[in-house]
């Protein structure tokens, strides 16, 4: 084991491997800037390049690109409210408000540092979890995933809507929109009006590009002021706004970084949970645990670091089923399997027995590319942060174009562009009326998870599935937490007329669920 660990590192430290790693990372960062090219598309587009490469160099090249692209997406999420991929929308929730306050540098620092720590944490999990991977997959089945989805719906009310009822309406709207497409259990088309393009739904990329990128550019354009216009230009260099302050934020909140990493790794380990659940879960958890939940959505660095840590830790986690069983833990990993095959390795138990050095090589590449991407990102962050002070007339048109291309590339339907445009205008109106776009997207993401896993759980285990130990624990704690708030409030009322904040019940619900992850 120790020998294989060292062999893996030595393979990566060969000069040519490092060169390929660097080239891959540079390409990955650029892809990360372009929404729709991030994630899966990075791997798919680079795959033909590695045919015929030396295995070690090929892996360094393509996994380096994959590791770096998510940081590229974080940069655009923070600076422009344009997520690199659908799931990275979570980074915009607090990252973008920080940029608006003139703290783009700090937000980028948080993102880079927490990505690096999360990524490293995921690699540690990768190494530790391989022996127990099967048990984890056995314990987290559709009933448990359904229960976690219910917890997510409870967190929905936490969103940043003007009133609580508007928060709930936002989430319900997202849930309803998510049901467009084929019913996952029966295969019957719902609300597609005969359009085959709608069979797989409206599309998370089109929806996030519309609701976040397009809406934000509309807001910017109509306001006519730069993103960070409220902050004086010298803010970006002031104490508390610098990149180094963001790194310091991350160090200070190391517990939350690790907790985010745990959530992310588990989501990666279980096929079918994926990055969206990881990032939303970590965000909801961080908010529920916070002493000041109201500051979330308004530029709280913890709202950036927990999901960023989870997102990067997820990749380490999703390597586990990929390597151990040949079953990809995420959509990107499905392509990693093909890549391994192209390079001459068959993923599965034999890989663990015969090519442990390659397993460790993969772990080292992931770790190193995470750290290097973050260092690179940190070096460039002060430069990028200046973009937040740019006039919207210069910034908005290219960003809208890039976002719409992103929506298109994801599905290759012109309909997706139309969806993004409509979502953009609808988002503008909804936001002006005080609804929460984060709530809409959360409902949109959770809808299919709850829908599909409820159907599967009923088919597999009957209605008795709620009595499975983990499911029962999660669901009953959720119920208790939901009821606890009003009960406590009712008990306190005689003594304290002012009462707690309105969102108390739902915040508590998120907390209960979070502690069960």
């Amino acid at each position: 084991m120790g020998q294989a660990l060292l062999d893996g590192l030595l393979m990566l430290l060969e000069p040519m491997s490092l060169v390929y790693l660097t080239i891959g990372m540079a390409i990955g960062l650029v892809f990360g800037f372009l929404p729709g090219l991030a994630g899966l598309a990075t791997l798919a587009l680079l795959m033909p390049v590695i045919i015929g490469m030396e295995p070690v160099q090929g892996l360094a090249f393509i996994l380096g690109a994959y590791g770096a692209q998510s940081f590229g997406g974080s940069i655009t999420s923070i600076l422009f409210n344009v997520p690199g991929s659908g799931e990275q929308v979570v980074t915009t929730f607090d990252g973008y408000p920080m940029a608006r306050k003139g703290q783009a540098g700090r937000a980028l620092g948080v993102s880079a540092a927490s990505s690096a720590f999360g990524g490293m944490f995921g690699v540690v999990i990768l190494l530790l979890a391989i022996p127990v991977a099967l048990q984890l997959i056995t314990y987290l089945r559709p009933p448990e995933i359904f229960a976690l989805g219910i917890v997510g719906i409870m967190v929905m009310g936490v969103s940043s809507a003007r009133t609580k009822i508007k928060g709930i309406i936002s989430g319900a709207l997202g849930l309803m929109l998510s049901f467009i497409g084929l019913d996952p259990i029966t295969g019957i088309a719902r609300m597609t009006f005969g359009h085959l393009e709608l069979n797989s739904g409206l599309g998370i990329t089109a929806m996030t590009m519309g609701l976040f990128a397009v809406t934000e550019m509309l807001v910017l354009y109509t306001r006519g002021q730069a993103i960070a216009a409220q902050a004086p230009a010298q803010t970006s260099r002031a104490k508390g706004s610098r990149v180094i302050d963001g790194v310091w934020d991350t160090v200070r909140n190391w517990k939350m970084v690790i907790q985010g990493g745990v959530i992310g790794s588990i989501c990666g380990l279980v096929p079918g949970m994926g990055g969206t659940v990881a990032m939303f879960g970590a965000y909801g958890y961080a908010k529920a645990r916070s002493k000041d939940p109201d500051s979330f959505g308004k530029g709280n660095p913890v709202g950036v670091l927990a999901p960023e840590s989870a997102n990067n830790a997820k990749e380490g986690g999703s390597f586990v089923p990929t390597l151990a069983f040949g079953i990809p833990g995420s959509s990107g990993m499905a392509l990693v399997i093909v890549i391994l095959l192209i390079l001459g390795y068959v993923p599965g138990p034999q890989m663990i027995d015969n090519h442990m050095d390659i397993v460790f090589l993969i772990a080292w590449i992931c770790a190193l590319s995470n750290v290097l991407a973050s260092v690179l990102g940190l070096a460039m962050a002060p430069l990028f942060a200046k973009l937040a002070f740019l006039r919207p007339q210069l910034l908005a048109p290219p960003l809208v174009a890039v976002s719409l291309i992103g929506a298109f590339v994801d599905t290759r339907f012109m309909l997706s562009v139309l969806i993004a445009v409509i979502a953009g205008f609808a988002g503008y109106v909804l936001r002006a009326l005080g609804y929460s776009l984060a709530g809409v997207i959360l409902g949109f993401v959770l809808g299919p998870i709850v829908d599909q896993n409820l159907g599967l759980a009923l088919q597999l285990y009957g209605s008795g599935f709620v009595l499975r130990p983990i499911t029962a624990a999660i669901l009953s704690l959720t119920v208790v937490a939901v009821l606890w708030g009003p009960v406590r409030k009712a008990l306190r009322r005689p003594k304290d007329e002012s009462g707690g904040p309105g969102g108390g019940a739902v915040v508590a619900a998120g907390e209960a669920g979070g502690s069960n992850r």
Partner: protein
Amino acid sequence: MRGLHAKGLMLAGTAAAAALVLAACGSDAASPTAGSEDEDPAAFYEGKTLTMIVPYNPGGGFDSYLRLLVPYLEEQLPDTTIRVENQPGGGGLIGANAVYQAEPDGLTVGLINYPGAVFAEVTGTDGVTFESTEWTQYGRLGALPPLVYTAPDSEYTSFEDILDASDTVKFGLGGVGSDAYYVAVAISNVFDFPHEIIGGYPGSNEADAALLAGEVDVSVNSGGAGVLMVEGSGAHGVVAVSNEPLEQLPDVPVIGDFGDDSQKEQLAPLASIYDLERMVVGPPGVPEDRADFLAEAIFAAASESGYAEEMEAASYPVNALNRADTMELSSTVNESIESLADLLAD
């Protein structure tokens, strides 16, 4: 190899912009001239652009079959520009519809999942605009028949075990209406064993995880993925839905080895249709001389040993079949399309 690298990089760089432009242009860009019947087909293809449609996402098996073929096809057609276009969605129906409705000038072909297209047609799936008997057929690139497999620690280690089962055998599949789903429906319709088909997993990966977790007993997956589960994870391959045993797993029996004569007769069309799995097709009515010319070029390219080696490395076996043989095979399959409809009714 160097050329291939450059190709990939170029692809990567231009994909976003190119894809947008292509979609905007639609199919009419592919037909600058209608062309007359008596023109030399070789001359016709000079200076033209051949569009090859993949009805699935980049990076998948169907995509690889065409993208890796392009350099070899360019050698056969040096003066023709070849463009691979992904039109995913609707379980492959969007791309198949696009090929069927393209101008029949021989400049648009697609690599379709032929059994999937037939299943969609005979089960009356919404949105099918083609008739499986009408395609212009150019040939077959590969045939990856479905493999039925059970978990490494399953009580069912052979197909006989499943047929003799007294408890309900649970099939776990990624997607109602997928090929694997219809294979499970057909098998359980023909053989009389207690069964339940759970088709609602998000994809075949989640179904495989459910198999390993012991949540379901049996899964079905096409070609490489099924073989990988057997070779990589120790799953038991119990039966292959084909006429010939799988090249990689020669010891796994084929579906025709089981059941009485009437059951064998019922399942024969299902096994045969998988001989045609990855078929290059065009819209109905392409001039015969052009179809012959292009089919020959495709067959020659697909027969290059370099192509087979590259595909083999990614666990996608190439099994090229020329136009005449493909058409002969499909005519026998087409005769039994009606009996397939009964077989797939759930």
